[in-house]
């Protein structure tokens, strides 16, 4: 595969898919950029006119925008921290021999197979409901006032709901990584006088750095776009307390019918996601090479 001939052939063979992918990506991006530069309300097509960067300045000066950026970041960081710390602990637990491990493993991985909207509804009605939810019943049992999770701690509640789903994913990845940890190394460390904690710190954690990096990268992609959980629980409220970037774009586009504004928001979200990705790769990229 190294001769000039085979390289040239490879380029020709690759060309169609590269072109197709380029079109696939460029056309929607170009259309979004195009509409973001126009005043375009779907209900009033007669007002269609060129607006330059007005859509952008309106979007950025909306006080909800900065809150949404903050909330988006909090969801990403919160869920990643919970899923990695929890996933490591659960992974270590699931890696131990115990009776009924097969079923326990299945149940731990279960939440990942539940659709986001369903998962959020389960939490909303079965756990967080202030009358009949499990948490409310538990509070009443100890004589405490039930907590109104979705009203008083909307963002934290959403982070918990999302983390519940992604915890399963992190556990799955980390468990398989733990299974590939060489037991002779562990025994060697034991003979070298390393305590269980030292073995975790000097052997397990370095071994898990690569899967953890992969988990962070994959989760970030999905967590930046969390929508269904907010849609079925808080609708971004109360106020803007649980509004993230996708939600604010949805609000502009579908509730105010402002297609131009939503397009501008979409482009800002693309830029934001890229900044996020560049920072992540700078910080974590070295964990990915051998």
């Amino acid at each position, binding site marked *: 595969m190294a001769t000039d001939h085979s390289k040239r052939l490879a380029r020709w063979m690759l060309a169609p898919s590269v072109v197709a992918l380029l079109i696939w990506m460029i056309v929607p991006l170009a259309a979004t950029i195009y509409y973001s530069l126009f005043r375009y309300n779907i209900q009033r097509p007669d007002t269609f006119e060129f607006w330059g960067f007005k859509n952008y300045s309106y979007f950025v000066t909306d006080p909800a925008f900065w809150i949404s950026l903050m909330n988006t970041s909090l969801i990403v960081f919160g869920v990643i921290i919970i899923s990695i710390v929890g996933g490591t602990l659960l992974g270590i637990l699931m890696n131990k021999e115990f009776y009924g491990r097969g079923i326990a493993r299945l149940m731990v991985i279960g939440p990942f197979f539940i659709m986001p909207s369903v998962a959020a509804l389960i939490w909303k009605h079965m756990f967080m409901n202030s009358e009949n939810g499990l948490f409310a019943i538990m509070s009443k049992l100890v004589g405490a006032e039930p907590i109104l999770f979705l009203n008083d701690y909307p963002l934290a509640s959403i982070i918990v709901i999302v983390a519940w789903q992604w915890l399963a994913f992190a556990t799955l990845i980390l468990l398989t990584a733990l299974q590939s940890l*060489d037991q*002779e*190394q562990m*025994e*060697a*460390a*034991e*003979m*070298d*006088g*390393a*305590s269980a904690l*030292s073995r975790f710190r*000097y*052997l397990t954690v*370095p*071994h898990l750095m690569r899967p953890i990096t992969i988990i962070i990268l994959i989760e970030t992609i999905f967590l930046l776009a969390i929508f269904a959980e907010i849609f079925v629980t808080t609708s971004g409220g109360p106020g803007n307390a649980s509004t993230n970037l996708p939600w604010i774009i949805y609000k502009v586009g579908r509730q105010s019918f402002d297609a131009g504004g939503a397009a501008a928001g979409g482009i800002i979200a693309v830029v934001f996601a890229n900044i996020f990705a560049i920072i992540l790769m700078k910080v974590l990229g070295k964990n990915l090479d*051998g």
Partner: protein
Amino acid sequence: MGNIVLKQVVKRFGEAEVIPPLDLEINDGEFVVFVGPSGCGKSTLLRLIAGLEDVTEGTIEIDGKEVTYAPPAQRGLAMVFQSYALYPHMSVRKNIAFPLKMAGVAQEEIDKKVEHAASILNLANYIDKRPGNLSGGQRQRVAIGRAIVREPSAFLFDEPLSNLDASLRVNMRQEITDLHRELDTTMVYVTHDQVEAMTMADKIVVLHAGVIEQVGSPLELYREPRNRFVAGFIGSPKMNFIEGPAAEKHKAHSIGVRPEHFEVVKKGGDFKGVVLSAEHLGSDTFLRVKMDDGQEILARGSGDVVVNYGDTVALKVEGKIYKFDDQGLAI
């Protein structure tokens, strides 16, 4: 010091008894090799001494102190694993320093000891590399270095050479023997290769199905095997066992003759047969001979014996004939 005593040690995995009651004494400064076919319990025995497996019954003493239930780190032993078990995320220097760091030794002291170990084992050139970038032999040295710095009362080796190629194995064998002479510390070495056992050991422990078949110096085992198993296991190529009338002539159930104790003769001789194959190595000639009654014999002749497939040869025994009863015990 490095005196290890096992008293009535038993190991069971569930129902399966891997090691029936076993007594063994390893003296200070000895190079002891556990040898036996795979699955004979030699690695398990080593792991029991190391403390990586729990003893089911019996006691283990190291330097007169009972350590049967002591955790591995407190036994003062160092182990070299078959896979070397180096820590992949640490440089060679940090790998070697790890046991000292865990013991809370001061950094200057650690540096000094690591430098010393590195110079003994010629590790200086790649001390800052990671194990992944080293060759098999280099990794092996790092693993030994990590064991040395702890200044253990005894070293445990678990088939340390089995992942190396043949020529490197011979070199490392020599290096470990030299190291033993230099450090004068007890070494317990597990292998399935009887050549390693013969060349390295002060004392060989032959294990079979968890039972110690015989303990002795290499030549003792070679000259005075206690039973057919030891006779067949020690020595290369394997001893020939002959049954039937030829054995009855010696009042034994079977007799054993080592290939090197045959001489190829023109006439007479003790055995006669047809050559099935002749390997001319220059220095020696190995002949596979099929006798009239169907039994096969491997004989080593001198390099100038010229025979070919299908020739009829006579073999004369020029050495000891080992005699065994129907239980396989030496008579």
